């Protein structure tokens, strides 16, 4: 297997090392067209803003190749977006990660201080975008990242604070951006601006999703909310009757039972039955204090219970008091 060594910097000069080893030349400090021997394809590098550069590679290999990235002095983070429709291997700290295709994990963030190597599959179109970002731009992000890593759902491993990598999914809007990049030709007049724009928007999407993660609660749709409120109103209107059953309520909301129960819990943070009992008890308390009844049993029947002990125990559960303590007897 052929091995290629290279390093990254924000400025274009690093490309010459890569080009030398693949026996080709850098055109305009931007484009490398790989020779047929290695594979068909090209790469493109450009500086987006001071502190952000983007490297784009679109290549079908003919021989196995291992692209090893060496540590360089630049303080960088590398955002690797992979949109190949097969699995490539990325090796970080002697651990192999599969990257590529949509259902696999397709985003890696690597610290420039960690060595890594990239092994694209042979005879497949490998398509990746790497965004190099100066660490000083990201200090805020890193601080936040370290404090939040435990909550992060994706599979990630954190090294020491200043040396970390992250492994996760690209969000949908970014995937669309990358897909449209796939259809462009690097020789187009508009390509340079287009890839700059894409790189910035990718970063924008990543950070907005990243900072949004906390309030990502998967809310109910409007239609579901309406259905929930409808059944809630129904329960309140029939508070003096028996519990109408979840089957009935779910039909009313136009959902399956299990979906209904989950949605109800999301909406009101309790189960339908517990909600119903709680409301009943609140009414019960009012009735007890109203002084309209002679005995507890009368109140109990009013609320459609048939066992006083059940009523008492539920009442105690909720208010930590016995019904008799709140009872005001009807005066003669």
């Amino acid at each position, binding site marked *: 297997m052929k091995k290629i060594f290279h390093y990254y910097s924000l400025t274009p000069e690093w490309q010459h090392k890569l080009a030398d080893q693949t026996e080709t030349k850098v055109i*305009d400090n931007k484009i490398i067209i790989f020779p047929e021997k290695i594979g068909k394809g090209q790469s493109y590098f450009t500086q*987006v*803003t*001071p502190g952000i550069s983007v490297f784009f590679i679109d290549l079908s290999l003919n021989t196995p190749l291992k692209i090893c990235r060496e540590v360089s002095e630049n303080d960088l983070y590398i955002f690797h977006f992979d949109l190949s429709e097969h699995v490539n291997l990325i090796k970080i700290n002697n651990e192999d990660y599969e990257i590529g295709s*949509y*259902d696999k994990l397709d985003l890696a963030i690597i610290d420039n201080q960690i060595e890594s190597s990239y092994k694209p599959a042979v005879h497949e179109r490998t398509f990746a975008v790497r965004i190099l970002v100066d660490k000083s731009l990201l200090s*805020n992000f890193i601080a936040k990242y370290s404090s939040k890593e435990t909550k992060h759902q994706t599979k990630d491993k954190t090294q020491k604070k200043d040396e970390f990598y992250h492994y996760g*999914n*690209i*969000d*949908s*809007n970014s*995937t*669309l951006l990358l*897909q*449209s990049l*796939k*259809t462009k030709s690097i020789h*187009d*007049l*508009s*390509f*340079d*601006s*287009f890839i*700059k*724009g*894409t*790189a*910035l*928007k990718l*970063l*924008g999407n990543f*950070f*907005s999703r990243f*900072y949004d993660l906390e309030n990502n609660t998967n*809310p109910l*749709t*409007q*239609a579901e909310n309406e259905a929930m409120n409808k059944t809630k109103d129904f329960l309140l209107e029939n508070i003096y009757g028996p519990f109408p059953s979840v089957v009935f309520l779910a039909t009313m909301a136009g959902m399956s039972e299990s979906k209904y129960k989950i949605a109800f819990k999301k909406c009101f943070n309790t189960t339908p039955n517990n909600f119903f009992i709680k409301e009943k008890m609140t009414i019960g308390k009012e009735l007890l204090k109203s002084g309209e009844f002679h005995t507890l049993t009368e109140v109990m029947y009013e609320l459609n219970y048939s066992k006083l002990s059940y009523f008492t125990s539920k009442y105690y559960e909720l208010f930590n008091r016995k019904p008799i303590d709140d009872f005001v007897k009807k005066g003669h």
Partner: protein
Amino acid sequence: MKTIEHFYSADLSWVENFAKQYNGKVEGNFIIVPEDIQSGTRYFLDCGEGIVAYYINVEYKKNLHLIQKNSSNDFVGFYYNLTDGEATVSVHNSLYNVSRWQYNLSVIDGTLESDYNVTKGSKTFALCIFIKKSSIREYALNNRLKFPNIDEILNPEKNTMIRFDRMSNESFHILDDLRKKKVGGPVFDLNLVGTVHMLIANYLKKLASKRIIIQTVNQPDLTSIISTQMYLIEHIEDHFPSIKLLAEKANMSESKFKTLFNKITGNTPNMFFMENKLLRAKELLESKQFSISQISDRLNFTNNSYFASKFKEHFGVSPKTFVQDL
């Protein structure tokens, strides 16, 4: 009617004066304008490389007359204007309507004086990009573009750039994407600069594809074509209305209609319709309020699989995958 005299430039020197004219102030990158003139946001950002972006998303409470008299003539302004309502620009005594359904992209040289009129109640969403002429030259040189007369084009004494045009559908949706973002903060700045670059890319693509310059199409024809576009957008959730009906609406023969539509929008009517329909579908998916089959029914696709295949063809990702990673 309030009259404001101001100038723009490809650096941030215009901001102070601009805010003062409105009796407003500058806070961070925002220009705060008193509520009785307009409500909404004005945001500016230096994008580097001699490019300044100026983002406007406001509703006007008064008729406004803006007179632009620039002190420096070394820049070109690109105005992407999506005003719902009435907005006109007059340059050299000719009046152009620049709201969303008219010429919504104007390119005006900094040397020119222009009058911008906007009426009360108009909602403006616009992005203005000011680019230094020297940056354009540098850009052309770096990318080995062949503009044989670039010096002449950029020499203010010999030539003034002015062009009224319509932005491409793609540019429109790039702007629409930006509109959904919350203004301010580093994430927005990334998006804003990204948007500027993508708009420039689109503009260059357009120059390269040598489509006809819209200004040369005769006015009534252009209006009819745009009105059919408007009709298609308004009925985006229905079936495609047929070329025959559209041609009748535009008062043209079918063949003339098709050719002209293609020339002006760069797309066939059906493609234009489908593209916008799919973008609408994407928006609906993003709202997370509907299931895929609900959306496919609502947008009148024959069946789910046809919808899914069209979606995948256009975006490269199936609707299901799209929703999953949202």
